[in-house]
């Protein structure tokens, strides 16, 4: 056993007591949350929303990539098409009691439709209230990507926009006319 050195122990004990006492005058680190809102980083991954393009149309094209990548399978949707050939989800449902806010859906989304926002105050009394339907998820604006409009940059023909009419897109080449 180590030799007892009461003298040294006493000095170090008193020093400890004093230094802990000095903490009375330190600033407290606690954020008094409901009164005092925390400063969240811009990339905070909170409540998931579905955004619209600048024209007001739904960005989601119902590709199922978000549902496929979701590690907890909390996203369910059904794709459908309107009469002009534009795809959109018939229903889009996120079960937030399962969601782990990993942000994979946002990364997977090819049209910037699904986005995570810095809102985390989603407490509910009932579990069923945590299942958000499309009307709960859709917002009116474009979210983090203000100018982006998928159907205006994609080379897909939909109603009102034919092949070759998208931004930065050349008119389609008539292969046969290229014959010498």
């Amino acid at each position: 056993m180590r030799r007892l050195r009461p003298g040294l122990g006493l000095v170090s004990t008193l020093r400890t007591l004093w230094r802990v006492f000095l903490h009375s005058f330190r600033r407290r680190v606690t954020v008094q949350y409901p009164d005092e809102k925390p400063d969240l980083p811009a990339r905070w991954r909170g409540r998931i929303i579905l955004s619209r393009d600048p024209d007001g149309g739904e960005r989601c094209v119902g590709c199922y990539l978000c549902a496929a990548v979701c590690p907890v399978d909390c996203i369910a949707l059904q794709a459908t098409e309107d009469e002009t050939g534009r795809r959109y989800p018939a229903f889009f449902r996120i079960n937030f009691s399962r969601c782990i806010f990993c942000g994979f859906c946002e990364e997977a989304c090819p049209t910037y439709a699904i986005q995570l926002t810095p809102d985390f105050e989603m407490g509910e009394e009932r579990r069923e209230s945590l299942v958000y339907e499309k009307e709960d998820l859709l917002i009116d604006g474009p979210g983090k990507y203000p100018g982006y409009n998928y159907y205006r940059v994609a080379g897909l023909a939909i109603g009102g926009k034919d092949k070759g009419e998208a931004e930065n897109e050349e008119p389609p080449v008539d292969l046969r006319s290229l014959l010498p």
Partner: protein
Amino acid sequence: MTETARVWLNVGLVIFGALTLAPGLIWLERRLLALWQDRYGPNRVGPFGILQSLADMIKIFTKEDWIPPFADRAVFVIAPAVVAVTALMSLAVVPVAPGIGVVDLNVGLLYILAMSSLGAYSVVLGGWSSNSKYSLLGGLRSAAQMISYEVFMGLSLAGVALLAGTFDLRGIVEAQRGMWFALPQAAGLVVFLIAGLAETHRLPFDLPEAESELVAGFHAEYSGMKFGLFFVGEYLGVVLVAALVSVLFFGGWLGPGLHPVLWFLAKTLFFICLFILFRAALPRPRYDQLMAWGWKVALPLTLINLAVTGAVVVARSGGGSP
């Protein structure tokens, strides 16, 4: 006022004071620990969170009061009562101020030591009757700890009794009119502070509980208000030791200017806060370190202190043979 009415008033006052102080202390401790850990602690229920203990009490009363089927029922029920009762009984002889205090025993000091020894039974019995290994280990540790700390707790107070020439706590306070015993009995004070902490098994010496190793030690199987009673008993013990330190070494109610009761309360509160600071700052020693320190350092120290004090008292009173 008749004599009986005065006694009953005092009894009521001390019991009411002690039993409201205990939950208040729980709040104070949580706030102070939080302060020293750069947090806020409970600050939501009532002004400054002072009603937190009340809310906790309501919660603990509505909890299931469960006695494990493998426990020794009778002993299991009695054990938590013992700690609270002995602490309250010891508080009976603590002199608050002239005229305030339940009884003035001429053996007050011995009585308090006896009561605190009885209090040790609570922990031992609680640990034994729970019939579970963690509780038993906690009870075992507390038995060894209390037996060894009892020894020099008593010896450290012998110097005070020698200087005052009496075991009566009131007499001891009166004897400190010239000088607080904290100065001539500095060694006794330090040893008593540590032994008192060990006696109440508060944090630096909470080996019987030792959350990190023994779940909750002797009260691991307790729930509901029985657990609450252990808790209240512990805080009553803290009040008692703080009050004793101020009475025995810091002149109790003596002090200039303020009302005697205020002096007593201020001194007691200071030592309570000191105990909480100990808890905030100091780690728990290993079991063998605790025992080794008790027997190899504290005991010789108190014996030397006692011998020197005795010699001084004898020399001052004319020396030679009595």
